[in-house]
Protein backbone atom coordinates (compact mmCIF):
# COMPACT_ATOMS: atom_id res chain seq x y z
CA UNK A 1 0.00 0.00 0.00
CA UNK A 2 1.34 3.29 -0.97
CA UNK A 3 2.04 5.58 1.85
CA UNK A 4 0.41 8.90 1.42
CA UNK A 5 2.81 11.62 2.32
CA UNK A 6 1.29 14.32 4.41
CA UNK A 7 2.45 17.62 3.13
CA UNK A 8 2.11 20.65 5.38
CA UNK A 9 -0.11 23.23 3.73
CA UNK A 10 1.94 26.04 2.25
CA UNK A 11 1.21 29.26 4.10
CA UNK A 12 -0.09 31.81 1.70
CA UNK A 13 1.80 35.10 1.87
CA UNK A 14 -0.38 37.97 3.01
CA UNK A 15 0.10 41.52 1.73
CA UNK A 16 2.37 42.44 4.63
CA UNK A 17 4.65 39.43 4.05
CA UNK A 18 4.81 40.40 0.40
CA UNK A 19 5.84 44.03 0.89
CA UNK A 20 8.10 43.31 3.86
CA UNK A 21 10.08 40.52 2.22
CA UNK A 22 13.64 41.88 1.61
CA UNK A 23 13.60 40.80 -2.06
CA UNK A 24 10.19 42.39 -2.61
CA UNK A 25 11.29 45.50 -0.74
CA UNK A 26 14.19 45.90 -3.17
CA UNK A 27 11.72 45.82 -6.07
CA UNK A 28 9.02 48.20 -4.87
CA UNK A 29 11.29 50.63 -3.00
CA UNK A 30 13.09 51.37 -6.28
CA UNK A 31 10.01 53.34 -7.40
CA UNK A 32 9.97 55.35 -4.17
CA UNK A 33 13.40 56.97 -4.54
CA UNK A 34 12.68 59.51 -7.30
CA UNK A 35 9.38 60.83 -5.83
CA UNK A 36 11.08 61.10 -2.42
CA UNK A 37 13.98 63.09 -3.93
CA UNK A 38 11.54 65.49 -5.64
CA UNK A 39 9.38 65.96 -2.51
CA UNK A 40 12.45 66.46 -0.27
CA UNK A 41 14.14 69.04 -2.52
CA UNK A 42 10.87 70.94 -3.11
CA UNK A 43 9.92 71.12 0.57
CA UNK A 44 13.47 72.18 1.53
CA UNK A 45 13.40 75.02 -1.02
CA UNK A 46 9.96 76.21 0.19
CA UNK A 47 10.92 75.77 3.85
CA UNK A 48 14.21 77.67 3.54
CA UNK A 49 12.56 80.45 1.56
CA UNK A 50 9.96 80.81 4.32
CA UNK A 51 12.61 80.56 7.05
CA UNK A 52 14.80 83.35 5.67
CA UNK A 53 12.51 85.62 3.66
CA UNK A 54 8.95 85.11 4.84
CA UNK A 55 9.06 84.82 8.61
CA UNK A 56 9.44 87.63 11.14
CA UNK A 57 12.14 88.14 13.76
CA UNK A 58 11.26 87.18 17.31
CA UNK A 59 10.66 90.18 19.59
CA UNK A 60 13.15 88.80 22.15
CA UNK A 61 15.54 86.57 20.22
CA UNK A 62 15.68 88.59 17.02
CA UNK A 63 16.97 86.71 13.99
CA UNK A 64 18.42 83.83 16.04
CA UNK A 65 14.89 82.39 16.08
CA UNK A 66 15.69 81.17 12.54
CA UNK A 67 17.98 78.51 14.05
CA UNK A 68 14.76 76.93 15.36
CA UNK A 69 13.83 75.93 11.79
CA UNK A 70 16.72 73.47 11.72
CA UNK A 71 17.07 72.74 15.44
CA UNK A 72 13.50 71.52 16.07
CA UNK A 73 13.35 69.19 13.00
CA UNK A 74 16.71 67.57 13.83
CA UNK A 75 15.67 67.17 17.48
CA UNK A 76 12.33 65.67 16.37
CA UNK A 77 14.14 63.22 14.08
CA UNK A 78 16.57 62.19 16.82
CA UNK A 79 13.60 60.93 18.88
CA UNK A 80 11.44 59.73 15.98
CA UNK A 81 14.28 57.53 14.66
CA UNK A 82 14.79 55.95 18.06
CA UNK A 83 11.06 55.16 18.37
CA UNK A 84 11.17 53.68 14.86
CA UNK A 85 14.17 51.55 15.91
CA UNK A 86 12.25 50.38 19.01
CA UNK A 87 9.28 49.33 16.82
CA UNK A 88 11.70 47.51 14.49
CA UNK A 89 13.20 45.81 17.55
CA UNK A 90 9.79 44.37 18.39
CA UNK A 91 9.47 43.19 14.79
CA UNK A 92 12.90 41.60 15.03
CA UNK A 93 12.40 39.93 18.42
CA UNK A 94 8.77 38.80 18.05
CA UNK A 95 8.48 37.97 14.35
CA UNK A 96 12.23 37.62 13.60
CA UNK A 97 11.66 39.66 10.51
CA UNK A 98 14.86 40.25 8.48
CA UNK A 99 13.63 43.61 7.20
CA UNK A 100 13.16 44.79 10.81
CA UNK A 101 16.84 43.94 11.50
CA UNK A 102 17.88 45.88 8.42
CA UNK A 103 15.73 48.91 9.34
CA UNK A 104 17.12 48.91 12.87
CA UNK A 105 20.74 48.62 11.75
CA UNK A 106 20.73 51.40 9.15
CA UNK A 107 18.66 53.81 11.26
CA UNK A 108 21.24 54.02 14.07
CA UNK A 109 23.91 56.07 12.20
CA UNK A 110 21.20 58.38 10.83
CA UNK A 111 19.77 58.83 14.33
CA UNK A 112 23.23 59.58 15.73
CA UNK A 113 23.87 62.20 13.01
CA UNK A 114 20.55 63.98 13.53
CA UNK A 115 21.03 63.94 17.33
CA UNK A 116 24.51 65.45 16.92
CA UNK A 117 23.02 68.11 14.62
CA UNK A 118 20.31 68.89 17.20
CA UNK A 119 22.94 69.33 19.94
CA UNK A 120 25.14 71.44 17.66
CA UNK A 121 22.35 73.79 16.53
CA UNK A 122 20.96 73.92 20.08
CA UNK A 123 24.35 75.03 21.42
CA UNK A 124 24.62 77.72 18.73
CA UNK A 125 21.10 78.93 19.53
CA UNK A 126 21.77 78.83 23.28
CA UNK A 127 24.83 81.09 23.22
CA UNK A 128 23.10 84.29 22.01
CA UNK A 129 19.80 83.45 23.75
CA UNK A 130 20.87 82.14 27.18
CA UNK A 131 24.48 83.28 27.21
CA UNK A 132 25.85 79.71 27.25
CA UNK A 133 26.52 76.93 24.76
CA UNK A 134 25.76 74.16 27.22
CA UNK A 135 23.85 73.65 30.47
CA UNK A 136 23.54 70.31 32.27
CA UNK A 137 19.76 70.45 32.43
CA UNK A 138 17.23 67.67 31.80
CA UNK A 139 16.58 68.21 28.08
CA UNK A 140 20.19 68.65 27.00
CA UNK A 141 21.62 65.91 29.20
CA UNK A 142 18.98 63.35 28.13
CA UNK A 143 19.61 64.24 24.46
CA UNK A 144 23.36 63.74 25.00
CA UNK A 145 22.54 60.33 26.54
CA UNK A 146 20.49 59.56 23.41
CA UNK A 147 23.53 60.33 21.24
CA UNK A 148 25.73 58.06 23.39
CA UNK A 149 23.09 55.31 23.11
CA UNK A 150 23.09 55.58 19.32
CA UNK A 151 26.90 55.38 19.27
CA UNK A 152 26.80 52.36 21.61
CA UNK A 153 24.29 50.58 19.35
CA UNK A 154 26.41 51.26 16.25
CA UNK A 155 29.49 49.88 18.07
CA UNK A 156 27.50 46.79 19.11
CA UNK A 157 26.40 46.08 15.52
CA UNK A 158 30.00 46.31 14.37
CA UNK A 159 31.43 44.12 17.14
CA UNK A 160 29.56 40.97 16.01
CA UNK A 161 30.32 38.88 12.94
CA UNK A 162 27.07 36.99 13.38
CA UNK A 163 24.44 39.57 12.37
CA UNK A 164 21.55 37.50 13.79
CA UNK A 165 23.07 37.47 17.28
CA UNK A 166 23.89 41.17 16.99
CA UNK A 167 20.31 41.95 15.94
CA UNK A 168 18.92 40.15 18.99
CA UNK A 169 21.19 41.94 21.44
CA UNK A 170 20.75 45.35 19.80
CA UNK A 171 16.96 44.88 19.77
CA UNK A 172 16.87 44.17 23.53
CA UNK A 173 19.12 47.13 24.36
CA UNK A 174 17.12 49.42 22.05
CA UNK A 175 13.91 48.46 23.84
CA UNK A 176 15.47 49.12 27.25
CA UNK A 177 16.79 52.49 26.03
CA UNK A 178 13.39 53.66 24.77
CA UNK A 179 12.70 54.85 28.35
CA UNK A 180 14.92 57.85 27.49
CA UNK A 181 12.40 59.17 24.92
CA UNK A 182 9.62 60.20 27.38
CA UNK A 183 12.37 61.58 29.65
CA UNK A 184 13.56 63.85 26.80
CA UNK A 185 9.97 64.80 25.91
CA UNK A 186 8.78 65.65 29.44
CA UNK A 187 12.09 66.88 30.90
CA UNK A 188 11.05 70.49 30.30
CA UNK A 189 7.87 69.93 32.35
CA UNK A 190 9.43 67.87 35.15
CA UNK A 191 12.51 69.95 35.95
CA UNK A 192 13.47 73.61 36.04
CA UNK A 193 15.30 74.28 32.82
CA UNK A 194 16.59 77.00 30.53
CA UNK A 195 15.01 75.15 27.62
CA UNK A 196 11.66 76.43 26.44
CA UNK A 197 8.59 74.17 26.94
CA UNK A 198 6.98 72.18 24.12
CA UNK A 199 5.48 74.33 21.38
CA UNK A 200 2.63 71.87 20.82
CA UNK A 201 0.50 70.98 23.85
CA UNK A 202 -3.13 70.19 24.66
CA UNK A 203 -3.77 73.97 24.67
CA UNK A 204 -2.66 74.23 21.03
CA UNK A 205 0.38 75.70 19.31
CA UNK A 206 2.14 78.39 21.33
CA UNK A 207 3.43 80.49 18.41
CA UNK A 208 2.02 82.62 15.61
CA UNK A 209 1.31 81.10 12.18
CA UNK A 210 4.08 83.18 10.54
CA UNK A 211 6.59 81.23 12.63
CA UNK A 212 4.97 77.79 12.82
CA UNK A 213 4.33 77.59 9.04
CA UNK A 214 8.05 77.46 8.07
CA UNK A 215 8.70 75.28 11.11
CA UNK A 216 6.19 72.64 10.00
CA UNK A 217 7.42 72.78 6.39
CA UNK A 218 10.99 72.21 7.59
CA UNK A 219 9.79 69.40 9.90
CA UNK A 220 8.19 67.73 6.90
CA UNK A 221 11.28 68.32 4.71
CA UNK A 222 13.65 66.78 7.26
CA UNK A 223 11.30 63.82 7.80
CA UNK A 224 11.20 63.22 4.03
CA UNK A 225 15.01 63.46 3.93
CA UNK A 226 15.22 60.81 6.64
CA UNK A 227 12.74 58.51 4.84
CA UNK A 228 14.77 58.90 1.63
CA UNK A 229 18.11 58.17 3.33
CA UNK A 230 16.62 55.29 5.34
CA UNK A 231 15.06 53.68 2.24
CA UNK A 232 18.31 53.92 0.29
CA UNK A 233 20.38 52.68 3.24
CA UNK A 234 18.02 49.70 3.68
CA UNK A 235 18.41 48.85 -0.01
CA UNK A 236 22.22 49.07 0.41
CA UNK A 237 22.18 46.77 3.45
CA UNK A 238 19.96 44.17 1.71
CA UNK A 239 22.28 44.17 -1.32
CA UNK A 240 25.33 43.88 0.98
CA UNK A 241 23.81 40.84 2.73
CA UNK A 242 22.96 39.32 -0.66
CA UNK A 243 26.57 39.83 -1.81
CA UNK A 244 27.90 38.34 1.45
CA UNK A 245 25.70 35.25 0.98
CA UNK A 246 26.94 34.85 -2.58
CA UNK A 247 30.54 35.22 -1.45
CA UNK A 248 30.10 32.56 1.30
CA UNK A 249 28.46 30.22 -1.22
CA UNK A 250 31.40 30.69 -3.57
CA UNK A 251 33.97 30.06 -0.81
CA UNK A 252 32.13 26.90 0.30
CA UNK A 253 31.96 25.68 -3.29
CA UNK A 254 35.67 26.31 -3.81
CA UNK A 255 36.69 24.59 -0.55
CA UNK A 256 34.41 21.63 -1.45
CA UNK A 257 36.08 21.30 -4.85
CA UNK A 258 39.55 21.37 -3.24
CA UNK A 259 38.55 18.65 -0.74
CA UNK A 260 37.28 16.45 -3.57
CA UNK A 261 40.65 16.78 -5.33
Amino acid at each position, binding site marked *: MNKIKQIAPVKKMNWFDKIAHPGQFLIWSRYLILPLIIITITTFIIGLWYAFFNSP*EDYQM*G*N*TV*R*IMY*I*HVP*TAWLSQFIYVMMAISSIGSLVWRHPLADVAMKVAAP*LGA*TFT*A*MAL*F*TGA*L*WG*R*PTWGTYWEWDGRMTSTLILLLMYLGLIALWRSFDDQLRAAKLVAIITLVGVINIPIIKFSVDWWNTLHQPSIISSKGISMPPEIYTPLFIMLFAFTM*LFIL*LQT*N*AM*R*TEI*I*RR*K*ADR*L*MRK*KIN*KNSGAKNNV
Partner: protein
Amino acid sequence: MFNSILEAPIEALGPHAIFILIAYGGVAIVTLALIIFNILAYQKQKSRLNRLKNNNENTNLI
Protein backbone atom coordinates in the same frame (compact mmCIF):
# COMPACT_ATOMS: atom_id res chain seq x y z
CA MET B 1 36.17 87.52 -1.78
CA PHE B 2 34.83 85.32 1.02
CA ASN B 3 34.19 88.39 3.16
CA SER B 4 32.25 90.10 0.39
CA ILE B 5 30.01 87.04 -0.04
CA LEU B 6 29.25 86.92 3.68
CA GLU B 7 28.84 90.67 4.09
CA ALA B 8 25.22 90.86 2.87
CA PRO B 9 23.77 88.01 4.99
CA ILE B 10 25.70 89.16 8.07
CA GLU B 11 24.29 92.64 7.67
CA ALA B 12 20.77 91.31 7.08
CA LEU B 13 20.79 88.85 9.98
CA GLY B 14 22.02 91.32 12.59
CA PRO B 15 24.44 91.00 15.52
CA HIS B 16 24.14 87.21 15.94
CA ALA B 17 24.42 86.41 12.24
CA ILE B 18 27.56 84.34 12.75
CA PHE B 19 25.66 81.82 14.95
CA ILE B 20 22.88 81.48 12.35
CA LEU B 21 25.35 81.04 9.48
CA ILE B 22 27.46 78.45 11.36
CA ALA B 23 24.29 76.52 12.36
CA TYR B 24 22.86 76.45 8.82
CA GLY B 25 26.29 75.88 7.24
CA GLY B 26 27.11 73.03 9.62
CA VAL B 27 23.77 71.31 9.06
CA ALA B 28 24.10 71.76 5.28
CA ILE B 29 27.61 70.26 5.22
CA VAL B 30 26.66 67.27 7.41
CA THR B 31 23.46 66.66 5.41
CA LEU B 32 25.36 66.73 2.13
CA ALA B 33 28.00 64.38 3.53
CA LEU B 34 25.21 62.03 4.67
CA ILE B 35 23.63 62.05 1.21
CA ILE B 36 26.97 61.49 -0.58
CA PHE B 37 27.95 58.68 1.80
CA ASN B 38 24.50 57.11 1.33
CA ILE B 39 24.82 57.13 -2.48
CA LEU B 40 28.45 55.93 -2.51
CA ALA B 41 27.67 53.03 -0.14
CA TYR B 42 24.80 51.95 -2.42
CA GLN B 43 26.95 52.13 -5.56
CA LYS B 44 29.76 50.17 -3.87
CA GLN B 45 27.49 47.31 -2.75
CA LYS B 46 25.63 47.24 -6.05
CA SER B 47 28.85 46.89 -8.08
CA ARG B 48 30.17 44.29 -5.58
CA LEU B 49 27.01 42.19 -6.04
CA ASN B 50 27.20 42.50 -9.83
CA ARG B 51 30.89 41.49 -9.80
CA LEU B 52 30.14 38.44 -7.66
CA LYS B 53 27.19 37.46 -9.88
CA ASN B 54 29.33 37.77 -13.00
CA ASN B 55 32.15 35.72 -11.42
CA ASN B 56 29.65 33.05 -10.43
CA GLU B 57 28.27 32.84 -13.94
CA ASN B 58 31.78 32.55 -15.39
CA THR B 59 32.68 29.79 -12.90
CA ASN B 60 29.51 27.89 -13.81
CA LEU B 61 30.37 28.14 -17.50
CA ILE B 62 33.81 26.61 -16.88
